[in-house]
């Protein structure tokens, strides 16, 4: 599964997808026009009629300008990093204007995922406003997270009340951008001991305690300190020292070790915290959850794999 899916809503906005309604202020202006019209009729005042119709015309013309501000805008979401629960997930949303021209007062909002009924006011969960967009611009939508698991960006709304603030045009984008929310690292249990019980192992920085096994080509995620620099001088390829750590050398983070905690979520939170500690300490670690195991390893790839298992644990 790809964690940062590129999702497309890249079809430029057109009239089939743009909605326009008066804002609160627009409704007040409408009320004022009604008052002016009544006054014009009552006093048979020609210029009051003219003004009333001029402002009415302005409202209609504003509709075109408000629409124009939104039309031709395309949106795509890019580059989403997984986050820990409680931290906002930052979805970068790229807005492209075709033909390129400046857009004003755009508010991009993520709507609360449920209850999209036309008669119900959409609940905005988070939004970001840009006074002016020129050409291709990126807006960052910070979606708050509370629970671990996959996070789908879902429906977005882009809206603007330019130029008069009396009408708002908006459009919805269905995105399939998703990211993963890791459990929040929490818990106070100490990091379990690796089986050898040597204090040096917990500090773990000295690779010498492990047996050198051989060299293999660099793969993304390999620890930088494992790179065999002398071989780089001899050949172009980057080689990484591989150690034969005995199974007993690996730090196994097990479900059973956190069974003291009553809540499964708290157990996952504790495990997450241990993963971060182990990674920081440069240890090789593995995860053992009921029905699921992640073999030992270290580095960013291992960390991502373990955290993903924790995030998606059922």
């Amino acid at each position, binding site marked *: 599964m790809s964690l940062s899916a590129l999702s497309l809503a890249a079809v430029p906005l*057109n009239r089939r997808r743009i909605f326009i309604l008066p804002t*609160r*202020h627009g409704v*007040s*202006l409408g009320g*004022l026009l009604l*008052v*002016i019209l*009544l*006054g014009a*009729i*009552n*006093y*048979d*005042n*020609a*210029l*009051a*009629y*003219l*003004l009333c*119709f*001029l*402002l*009415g*015309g*302005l409202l*209609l*013309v*504003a509709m*075109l*300008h408000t*629409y*124009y501000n939104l*039309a*031709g805008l395309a949106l795509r979401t890019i580059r989403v990093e997984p986050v820990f629960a409680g931290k906002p997930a930052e979805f970068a949303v790229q807005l492209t204007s*075709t*033909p390129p021209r*400046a857009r*004003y*007062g755009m508010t991009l909002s993520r709507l609360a995922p449920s209850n999209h009924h036309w008669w119900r006011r959409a609940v905005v969960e988070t939004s970001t406003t840009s*006074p*002016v967009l*020129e050409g291709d611009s990126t807006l960052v939508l910070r979606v708050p997270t509370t629970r671990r698991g996959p996070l789908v960006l879902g429906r977005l709304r882009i809206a603007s*009340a*330019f*130029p*008069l*603030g*009396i009408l708002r045009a908006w459009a919805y984008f269905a995105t399939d951008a998703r990211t993963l929310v890791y459990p929040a690292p929490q818990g106070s249990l100490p990091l379990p001991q690796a089986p050898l019980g040597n204090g040096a192992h917990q500090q773990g920085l000295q690779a010498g305690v492990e047996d050198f096994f051989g060299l293999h080509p660099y793969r993304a995620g390999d620890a930088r300190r494992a790179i065999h620099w002398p071989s780089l001088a001899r050949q172009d390829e980057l080689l990484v020292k591989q150690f034969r750590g005995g199974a007993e050398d690996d730090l196994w983070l097990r479900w059973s070790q956190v069974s003291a905690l009553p809540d499964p979520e708290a157990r996952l939170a504790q495990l997450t915290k241990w993963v971060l500690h182990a990674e920081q300490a440069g240890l090789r670690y593995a995860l053992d959850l009921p029905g699921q195991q992640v073999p030992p390893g270290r580095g960013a790839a291992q960390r991502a794999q373990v955290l993903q298992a924790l995030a998606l644990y059922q």
Partner: protein
Amino acid sequence: MRLEAAHLWWCLAGLGLALAPHASRLALGILLSAGALAAWRMLAAYGYLPLPDRRHRALWSLKQLLAIIAFGAIYIAYRGQIGRDAGVALLAALLGLKFLEMERARDFYVMSFLTYFLVVTNFFYSQTVPTALYMLLVVILVTAGLIRFNTPVQSYPARACLSLALRMVVQALPIMAIAFVLFPRLPGPLWGLPQDAFSAVTGLSDSMTIGQITSLGVSDEIAFRVKFDAQLPRAAERYWRGPVLWDTDGRTWRTRQVGEGEPHAVIKQGPVYRYSVLLEPTGERWLLGLDAVTQSDRTAVAGADQTLYARAAVKQRLRYTLESATHYQLREITTAERRAALALPAGHHPRAAALGREWQAAQRDPAARVQRALEFFRRGHFVYTLLPPALPGDAVDQFLFETKAGFCEHYAASFVVLMRAAGIPARVVTGYQGGEFNNVSDYLIIRQRDAHAWAEVFLPAQGWVRVDPTSVVAPARLSLGINSIAGERSPLALIDRNAAALKAFRSVAALWEAMNYQWSQWVLGYSPQRQLEFFAELGFDDADAGDMILLLTASLALVMALLALLTLRSVQAGDPIIRSYARFCAKLARRGYPRAPTEGPRDYALRVSAARPDLAAKIEYITKLYTALRYGDARLDPALLGRAVGRFVVSRDR
């Protein structure tokens, strides 16, 4: 959007300009306090003063106190009457207070909308072309303020705000014009009007106290305009008939409720003139028409004494169409009318009455008695003047036998007294005489200074006959207009000395007047009735509100579609280069070579060229041009591609 000092300045500019024309009408106290409140808010915006919110109790109380004082002052100044003037004063005070309270985005919108409303209040005082243009500027400014509030200051300069506002207002103008013409007009007030709604109205009245017309004598205000279908009557025949005065108490003359009964027949004896009148508001029901009206449209109803009446008091410019004959006979008189036309107040003007009785005894022929009376004026050293001496005693006797100086009212009233004393039924007719011709758009302007009064006597052989005793004393009053007599008192008199300047002045004045006429005719005088006429001209006889709304909606839809086409063309069209290339592909697709969705321009060109070697050179040229424009040289002219695609013709396969 946060409210910043810049936004406040925009708001203040709109408010100030919309309020400026009211300045002379508002009490100084209200202006000063509104200014002080505005200054307070502006100082607060720059941090020199705190705002009167709850945290600053003293300031908050001060604001409340100011509000109470302002409203109290308005209540006292206008004696508790909520009319037009008090309404404006109240609005001004309210706007000052509201301006001080401006804090949130909502306040900005409220202030902007109230400024739009303030613009309307100006129209209750003036509806001239300059007022309309000035207020259009205010609307543009307020709209620009709204744009300012919705755009970032850094990337959207003030000039851009103003130019967008101007563009939007210009785009709204056709919508305004269509709605103005087609929106169904309702007649009459929906609720009671305040007493001072039409206080500025001047003109004739349905009573005449000697000396009253003096003030009108030099007023250049327009009373009405007349447009004739064909030729005009001669200057001396231009008697515009208004209210007929029957009853007198010796000093004041009044109309009678003889009324609105069936008018007596007018026997035409000469050419008939067809014309339309555009009457300025009078606040009265009677209308003016060329003496005597033989036919009228539905707006005007003739009364028994040939006075024309509108269906309701004329509070707005009114347009109506009439037919008149200047040579005519009015042969009918009822007993009641005869009695009223002979009545004299008991115990008044004994000398005049005696003179009348003397003529009655001397001459058996009534027409001869009329001649005697005119002879009396002609030979009696009477003087026409707009500044007659005061007549504190018996006005008629004093005028006829002592001062011998006066203007039309004096002559008409005393002539009628003499006639009645001589046993001839007589009545005073008020109205206007003359009129000035506007060469630019061919119509006659009648001003308040043309107000006139004359007499009518009933002779058994001829019926009612017009007699204008003033013409005997001052013949020029009729042929040249009142300016020939008013002399130095007229503002035009100074220019009179320089013929060239006068000519230039006249032509500019005529042009201006002509524009005002069109404005009055089409904008200010556009009444429910005028609207029906307009619809009739369009071919909708007896259009009702439903028809109008239908036509309005259809026209608005059309205009909006056109505006959308203009505004949104670039949205639909996109890049001209892509558009041209798409046209090229479409031309090939029509002959059976559609471009596959995944096919690049290069591959497509190769494939089609292989199938149609006859087109290969052109296809290659267009494709190269397209790729160069799209991905390479920015200096190339995109129009090149458009032209090449335009010339590109795909012949049928052989």
